């Protein structure tokens, strides 16, 4: 086949060229009358969805064709799948960039078909959609906006967790056309909508609807350029305007000289507008220059970010701007180095010496020429020209001493992938730029969705990408279609996937389960290495105990809690407890959660497990939280009664302490009644009660409590000492000091009283501390400021050193006294 002329179908538009590349032919059957269909094409050369427009009359053929459906074709016209449609009038048909088909019906139901084969999720738009009805929808790569018949706009910006929300309320009036600016290109980072109402256009975002105050409406079409910078409008007079998206400046105006309003207005890249009628397409460039194309049949326009796809029954074409590199090489009369380089290859093949001459001539700019050839190769759809350009680059490279070939190598890799997927049997007419944006991973995903597993695996191996998802998808598909017995299917799958890393058997098992093959699902699940992954499916399969065990095995507390929540709501309490009580981690978690949530459950649990102390503790805790005294005591009694049967000494002690607690509360209640007219004692500890009684001068009552509660003597003495000091009851303390013996000794008296600042009284206790060494007592006297007494103490102990130390601190008569003592002790010379 003769190579096509690289300049074929070039069209000059102002300063730049556009070209229309034919990609496939013989797309649709004659039967399909494109004019009667609503058509939506997935971005990046993706699938095309066709749905017959029910508002248009059509020729009756047979029962089959009258059945409403959504047909999904590849761009080369291969039918991928047919979805029967019986869910009402479709008001929105569009694609996400993950090639998910979105179908919005009049009542606001959104169906999201993923994987091209009829699997779908659905949700409702809400926000009055049901009441008012959906009028139309506009899509962007990851969301859409629905226009309701009451002019409200509902946005869905995420399909995984769809959260439909309203934009600002819009003015009433007839909406003649509308369009949206994707969130990535707005200042507010939320989607914004252009709504042509009456003569003007409103810009609507989540907070307000701003009137752009235009006079030339009603606008029959509004379309926003791919980067959101420009808007194309069709005025009431049928003229095409291109304005900036803030409506501040008008860039061009074009008169299509047609009384019929165009059917569609789209952007071809960011620089040109495509308007289309049934069989006529105008390409409008800057400053209103235009190119016109005519067709025999109906032409449908599918916009891409870097051009448009034009689909007729016979052809699929890609119309796009000729890039600078391509233009530099192929433009008639081009003398650019790259162009010369390409010529040189021809000359070289003809063994002409001029080849070298040419090369020498462009030598200084040869590296750029090579770069340009490599880049231009990417732009070509025709393999002949790809090869020529790469050959030219290779030739140029060989002349250069130093050239980084990475880009060259990468380009050859990319072109191989592109060639494979552009094949008409696959039907992905993706351009180089689109491939770069789509990424190889998602291209592979698309192949998998088309069940092109072999090609997908080949490409992933070629590009060194993970292939696990391909295998999992294959296996899931196998599960769906396989009719053999479960063992055989499982064996087949396991064999095929053996040694492949990262395989999620859980997903395959999920498919099996969804297909109703529970046994197969269980078998497959056993091959899942990640315990945690198995849990949700096991729960679905009602394999509760296994699910719980797997969750525990995974060590993930969240997973265990999740299973427990599930089980608790599902099982009767008794069997729930039975399930958990052989699993310590599970019961510990139930216990912890119940503690803050559900004490009744806790009591039941402890009762069932025969844990009286824990059960009693719950009641004790409730007693603490109770604000009403009788109920406090009642709970305490209940707590105590739970323990009454046990002989275990620690339980017996606990029970004793609990009854002591109620006893104390009773006493305190009485004290409050007798001594204070508000609650002063209630709830204090025994020690605090006694301390406060003594401090308030009720020593007798304190003593009574001491014996009643069998408080150790020492403790009581300490309390009395501290309370009396706090009360500054020096008299009483002095009286106590007259007693012969104190169970806590007298040193504490000295310390506490001294600490309170009464040195005089403190000193009274120094001589009573008979068991302390003399040095300490000396120090004690000193602290009381009684140097003379300290001296006596030291003298008695015959401690000269201490005396000498004291000497330095003494003054007045004490000094003389100490001198005397020192002299007395010192042996005379």
């Amino acid at each position: 086949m003769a190579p096509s002329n690289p300049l074929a179908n070039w069209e000059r538009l102002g300063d730049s060229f556009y070209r229309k590349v034919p990609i496939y032919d013989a797309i649709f059957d004659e039967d399909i009358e494109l004019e009667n269909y609503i058509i939506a094409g997935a971005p990046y050369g993706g699938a095309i969805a066709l749905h017959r427009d029910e508002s248009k009359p059509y020729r009756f053929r047979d029962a089959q064709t009258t059945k409403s459906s959504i047909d999904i074709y590849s761009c080369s016209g291969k039918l991928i799948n047919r979805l029967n449609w019986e869910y009402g009038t479709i008001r929105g048909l569009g694609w996400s960039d993950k090639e998910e088909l979105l179908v919005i019906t009049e009542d606001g139901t959104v169906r999201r078909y993923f994987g091209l084969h009829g699997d779908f999720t659905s949700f409702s738009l809400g926000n009055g959609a049901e009441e008012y009805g959906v009028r139309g929808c506009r899509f962007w790569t990851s969301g859409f906006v629905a226009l309701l018949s009451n002019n409200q706009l509902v946005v869905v910006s995420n399909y995984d967790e769809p959260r439909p929300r309203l934009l600002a309320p819009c003015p009433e009036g007839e909406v003649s056309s509308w369009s949206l600016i994707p969130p990535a290109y707005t200042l507010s980072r939320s989607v914004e909508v252009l709504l042509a109402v009456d003569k003007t256009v409103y810009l609507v975002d989540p907070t307000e609807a701003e009137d752009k105050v235009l006079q030339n409406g009603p606008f029959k079409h509004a379309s926003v350029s791919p980067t959101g910078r420009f808007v194309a409008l069709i005025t009431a007079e049928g003229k095409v305007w291109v304005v900036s998206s803030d409506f501040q400046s008008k860039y061009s105006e074009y008169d299509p000289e047609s009384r019929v309003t165009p059917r569609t207005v789209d952007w071809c890249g960011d620089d040109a507008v495509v308007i289309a009628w049934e069989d006529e397409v105008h390409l409008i460039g800057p400053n209103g220059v235009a190119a016109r194309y005519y067709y025999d049949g109906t032409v449908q326009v599918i916009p891409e970010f870097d051009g448009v796809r034009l689909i007729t029954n016979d052809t699929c074409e890609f119309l796009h701007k000729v890039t600078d590199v391509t233009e530099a090489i192929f433009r008639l009369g081009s003398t650019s180095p790259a162009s010369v380089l390409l010529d040189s290859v021809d000359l070289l093949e003809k063994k002409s010496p001029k080849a070298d001459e040419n090369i020498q001539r462009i030598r200084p700019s040869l590296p750029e020429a090579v770069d340009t050839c490599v880049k231009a190769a990417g732009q070509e759809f025709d393999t002949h020209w790809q090869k020529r350009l790469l050959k030219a680059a290779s030739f140029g490279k060989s002349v250069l001493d130093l050239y980084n070939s990475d880009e060259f190598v990468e380009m050859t890799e990319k072109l191989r992938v592109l060639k494979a997927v552009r094949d008409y049997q696959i039907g992905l007419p993706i351009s180089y730029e689109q491939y770069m944006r789509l990424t190889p991973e998602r291209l592979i995903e698309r192949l998998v969705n088309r069940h092109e597993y072999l090609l997908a695996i080949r490409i992933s191996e070629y590009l060194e990408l993970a292939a696990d998802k391909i295998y999992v998808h294959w296996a899931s598909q196998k599960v769906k279609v396989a009719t053999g017995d479960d063992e055989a299917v499982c064996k087949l799958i396991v064999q095929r996937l053996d040694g492949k890393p990262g395989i999620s058997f859980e997903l395959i098992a999920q498919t099996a389960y969804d297909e109703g093959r529970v046994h197969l699902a269980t078998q497959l699940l056993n091959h899942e290495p990640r315990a945690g992954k198995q849990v949700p499916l096991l729960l679905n399969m009602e394999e509760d105990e296994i699910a719980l065990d797997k969750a525990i095995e995974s060590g993930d507390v969240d997973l265990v809690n999740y299973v427990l929540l599930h089980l608790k709501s599902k099982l009767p309490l008794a069997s729930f407890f039975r399930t958990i009580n052989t699993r310590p981690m599970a019961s510990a978690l139930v216990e912890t959660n119940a503690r803050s949530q559900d004490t009744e459950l806790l009591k039941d649990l402890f009762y069932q497990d025969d844990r009286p102390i824990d059960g009693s503790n719950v009641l004790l805790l409730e007693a603490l939280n109770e604000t009403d005294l009788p109920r406090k005591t009642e709970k305490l009694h209940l707590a105590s009664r739970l323990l009454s049967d046990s002989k275990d000494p620690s339980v017996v002690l606990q029970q004793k302490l609990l009854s002591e607690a109620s006893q104390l509360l009773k006493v305190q209640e009485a004290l409050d009644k007798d001594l204070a007219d508000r609650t002063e004692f209630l709830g204090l500890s025994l020690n605090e009660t006694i301390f406060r009684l003594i401090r308030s001068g009720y020593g007798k009552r304190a003593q009574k409590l001491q014996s009643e509660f069998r408080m150790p003597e020492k403790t009581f003495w300490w309390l009395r000492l501290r309370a009396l000091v706090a009360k500054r009851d020096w008299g009483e303390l002095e009286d106590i000091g007259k007693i012969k013996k104190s169970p806590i000794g007298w040193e504490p008296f000295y310390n506490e009283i001294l600490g309170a600042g009464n040195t005089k009284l403190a000193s009274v206790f120094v001589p009573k501390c008979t068991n302390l060494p003399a040095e300490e007592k000396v120090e004690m006297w000193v602290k009381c400021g009684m140097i003379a007494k300290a001296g006596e103490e030291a003298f008695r102990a015959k401690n000269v050193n201490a005396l000498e130390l004291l000497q330095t601190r003494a003054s007045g008569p004490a000094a003389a006294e100490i001198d005397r003592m020192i002299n007395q002790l010192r042996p005379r010379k």
Partner: protein
Amino acid sequence: MAPYPGSDADYFKDKARRDLLTLLEGVRGKKNLIVSQDLAGPVGLFVKFSLLQEYGVDRVFLLENGNVDSSQRNVVFLAHAEKLPQVRAVAEQIKRLQRNGNIEHEISIFWVPRRTLVSNTILEEAGIIGDVNIAEFPLYFMPLEQDVLSLELEDAFSDLYLHKNPGCIFHSAKALMDIQQRHGYFPRIIGKGDHARRLADLLLRMRKELDAEESSGLAGVSARGLLPSATTESLIIIDREVDFGTPLLTQLTYEGLIDETVGIKNNQADIDTSIVGGATTVPQTQESSKGPQPASSSKQHQKRKIQLDSSDQLFSQLRDANFAIVGDILNKVARRLESDYESRHSAKTTTELREFVNKLPSYQLEHQSLRVHTNLAEEIMRNTRADIFRKLLEVQQNYAAGADPTYHHDAVEELIARDVPLPAVLRLLCLESCMSGGLRPRDLENLKRQIVQAYGHQHVLTFCALEKMQLLQPRPSSTPTALLLPTAATTTTSTTTGSHHHQQSASSRTNYNTLRKTLRLVVEEVSEKDPNDVAYVYSGFAPLSIRLVQCVLQKPYVLSLVRGGPVATVAPSPASASSPGWLGFEDVVKSARGATFSIVQKGDDKAVRARQTISGAHAVKTVYVFFLGGITFTEIAALRFIAAQEAPRRRIVICTTGIVNGDRMMEAAIEKGSFAKVA
């Protein structure tokens, strides 16, 4: 602690900051931030409030206060998705916002450290899951210092030992996986304690799952993850319950004592302004004025937040020193500062003068820090000189040294009668129980009764909790030593990922009586000024936990210590390849509670060797020491002491679930309610 380039600390700090800011950026415009109490502090470790403001945060509320208002349309919640009460609180407040607000809120939740199934369920039940944007904030390790990574899980201790909730083990495993993914697998995992064993098992399991998940098989693009690290020597995991005794003792390093007296949280201490003076500059006040609690000037005792980390040079010098010598250091610094200051008089030429002026700011900073620490040290001194502190310490040290505890019950009873704070008393009881294998039942009963009478009968619950944690137990009536003899069982298993070698000994209690001798825990002659053994951190008692680490890292030293020969100069043992794991100490460590293990994580041999050739002479390898259940400042100090000795050969990075001390351990058990609650 010279910061090494690309250290884990810097990495995790950067990552946490970047992650949070990216999330905040995702919420356009101004927003109010509601953060849970246990995250508010940690967040301060890696991002300043002023930076949050730059990212549109207008006001910060505490989740627990429940006082979010509708002043901003955007509301962002930052909370733990693994803590159910927090999840419920978030759900409740979102519902409240939706009910009250006359504006429609845009609500986002950033779940730390991940979005959980249960949080989904709770939000679903509350009917709001469709109205909120949910994102994950994978916050695991936060650097407290260059050599300390903490998960800052406040509840880890109580969760693990009281509620038996192993959530923090999973959390720790995830965090350690982060390290493994950064550096490669730990070539060896050594550990002690049953929970430690569980953590190691989780690590092995996660590695297997990651291997399965890592879809690299086709070309081995990221084979990196499959290899043992060339820069890491090992991971040592110490379960807190192996050594409950150590944290029960009063910490005697400067930082430890600050923690004991005023408490340190997220590298900060709230200190009364009467002690450290008011804030002269504005280090943290901004946060508090706009932050959670609007600074209430009505409070008489204003607290000031003091940053305690290595940004304060003086503090770096002081923190790990025994408190006994802190005064000396402070004096020295004061004198040096003064002479530096005086140098201005000798400055003659203008250049000299200019030099002095240039240094002025740093002098002032140092001066300020000196004043703070002098005052703080004085305050601590006042406390340590008090009669009660001395009594407490005396009892503690006797217990630690293994003296007959019954002799000291009188002292304990006196302390109870004198109404010292309950945690201090409980610490003594628990310490006795830990150190001598339980209390005699009669003594325990008697002390329990006295404590309940002194502090309130609600503490019946406190005792139940302590017993559940096995911190306080009656001594079995039969001869105690017979029961404490460990029964050992050794098992060796191997799996496909490599060969494991581990021993398990099923000791149910740590026998300090044995270990005191076999690991020489008591080193009375230790010098506080010029320490020659880790025992300096408790003035003569070496933490068991640290001795265990030494059994792995400093075998010759421990051996010479025990034999009592010439106190070893820490002999250079090049990366203990010759005797790895517990080798040489297998029998000794059996006396400590729980499983003992040493696992080799092997990778593809060829790849390992290739890797070693590439990375070449990586002389200094890192040892990660992970304290599961918490670490004390004294233990950190001791590990740093070891790290300094090991510096030429290895580097030690301390990891933990959080900082713990005796009081905090007790607080986990202490019942907060009281009978006084009346309508």
